[in-house]
């Protein structure tokens, strides 16, 4: 049975530090690598806490965000899933905000015209900009168009093209150019 001289409070402090570092790595490096890193950090921090206390052990790590960034430099995969997820989320919110604005404008038009209701389709076949107004209102929460837009945002945000095999990316790489010339 394992015996540790590290108190519950110290373990909590250590876990919080690991959680902070893990937050930097989440979605950016493979899950298995993250788990391995966390286990190693935990064992090192417990060893340090046994000698100097958890507070000193954590402070010796320095800026936890910078430490996470250092690990990212070592292990970063080509696909940044977290950035992709944020891009998809922001796109969804933006599309829904625009759809709500369209709906409110339509509702105002109906009210101004003295009507009781109606339906609209701003872009035929495009889910977010179609809906109906009667006693209440209806609008698309999630349609195939939403999903397509979010997928495109995810692919752009995560820089998915970097995950393509080198052979496919070669043409793009040579166009981007990596040669550096010193200034005058």
């Amino acid at each position, binding site marked *: 049975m394992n015996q*540790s001289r*590290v108190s519950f409070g110290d373990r909590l402090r250590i876990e919080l530090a690991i959680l902070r570092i893990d937050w930097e790595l989440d979605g950016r490096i493979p899950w298995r690598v993250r788990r391995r890193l966390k286990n190693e950090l935990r064992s090192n921090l417990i060893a340090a806490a046994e000698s100097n206390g958890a507070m000193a052990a954590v402070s*010796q790590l320095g*800026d936890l965000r910078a430490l996470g960034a250092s690990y990212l*430099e*070592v292990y970063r995969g080509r696909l940044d899933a977290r950035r992709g997820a944020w891009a998809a989320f922001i796109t969804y919110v933006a599309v829904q905000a625009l759809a709500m604005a369209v709906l409110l404008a339509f509702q105002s038009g109906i009210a101004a015209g003295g009507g009781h209701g109606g339906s609209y389709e701003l872009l035929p076949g495009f889910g977010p900009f179609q809906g109906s107004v009667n006693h209440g209102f209806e609008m698309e929460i999630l349609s195939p168009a939403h999903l397509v837009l979010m997928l495109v945002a995810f692919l752009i945000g995560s820089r998915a093209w970097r995950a393509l095999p080198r052979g496919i990316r070669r043409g793009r790489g040579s166009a981007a150019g990596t040669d550096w010339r010193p200034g005058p």
Partner: protein
Amino acid sequence: MPDENGAHDSQLLKGVLSMALLRLLAECESYGYELVGRLHELGLKQIHEGSVYPALSRLEREGSVTARLVSSNSGPARKYYRPSPAGYASLAECEVAWTTLVRALEPILSRPVPRRPQEART
């Protein structure tokens, strides 16, 4: 280089950290925190865990070190590192490069520093 307080330039140390880690691991396999302690015992107290742990990960990713897990009675298993054959080769290269650099700098640094730099000739 140490100043009057015995402190070393941390940027300078970062440049040679991989070499120092490989050299210490070649002497005795160690886990991360133990290595930090060994560096501190040598007087390199400016090197913190936050620099050593990612440096070890980098060495492992490059294939310069191999690692094995050894169970610990105080918590999760500890990861002990030792140089791989590639690591020994890299260490030998680094030591040659370092020695060459020190030899090249030595004549410059051994000259007395003049009070003022010589004026440029126009």
